[in-house]
């Protein structure tokens, strides 16, 4: 079963890198959607089928934690796993993300192996059998 991933980051460079890295993992990915902040991500979620969201935390307009909270408050998107990808290695933001229901987090800088390791199990659970 192929997955549809939404990458949310205000940096176009990081979105480009994640596109490449996700393809390199060899996971069965059909589409990789992109959004530059939380609000754009919500618009993508309304219009597209998404299996997993990979989101930065620090972003203008609507940050990753606000996006996560909005998704967990929505009956439609509550079940979509959200993995935070961030330089925020400190306990505060990561703990907040976990409390809000994040499925996991990846620290920047990251390797393709780290992304694959984090996402593989989560996607397996998220995809219908």
């Amino acid at each position, binding site marked *: 079963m192929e997955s549809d991933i939404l990458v949310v980051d205000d940096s176009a460079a*990081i979105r480009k890198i994640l596109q490449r890295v996700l393809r390199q993992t060899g996971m069965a990915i059909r589409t990789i959607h992109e959004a530059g902040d939380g609000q754009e991500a919500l618009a993508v979620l309304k219009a597209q089928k998404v299996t997993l969201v990979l989101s930065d935390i620090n972003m203008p307009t609507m940050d990753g934690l606000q996006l996560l909270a909005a998704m967990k408050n929505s009956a439609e998107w509550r079940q979509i796993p959200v993995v935070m990808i961030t330089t925020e290695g*400190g306990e505060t933001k990561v703990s907040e993300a976990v409390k809000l229901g994040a499925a996991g987090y990846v620290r*920047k800088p990251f390797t393709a192996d780290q992304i694959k390791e984090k996402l593989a199990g989560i996607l397996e659970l998220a995809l219908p059998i």
Partner: protein
Amino acid sequence: MNLEELIVSSIRDSAAQVFSTMLGVEIDRGEVSVETGTPEQANDGIVSFIGVAGAWAGTGSLSCSPALACRICSHMLMMDASSVDEEVLDTVAELTNMIIGNVKTELEQYLGPLGLSIPTVIFGRNFRTKSVGNNKWTVVCFQWKDEHLLVKLCLSPTDRVAHGAGHVVGQSCALDVRTES
């Protein structure tokens, strides 16, 4: 280890890790210096800033030549970048975010929770920059082939000075946080 030594060590580790992981290159360590006041020399090239806030506040900065910025972008995005465009500036901003972000995470163990702003990148010739408030910058130089990259950080305590690490009563702290030079 005092605060300045900790900042230098964190910047060196963080920059090495980011370059190695995201660009697949090893950068050479250069000199460390302390910069005070407003630099007399004007800047040419690219300077990126990111704000740090919390019990300690300040600014992190990264500066390099346009040629090095293009090389960084080419390696990071695996594409050919020959002139400074939005993609190159975005890459430098993200590099700053990752390097200073990891330094921030390391420092939080000693200084308490810190926040990071969204980075700002400036590209031009003959411009000056000034940070209002603390003007003592720890400057760490790196070299990649013939080009230099400068990573700087200035930090000073705010009204809400908090010591990040909890210690058992009577236990000595490994970090001697000195706020005066």
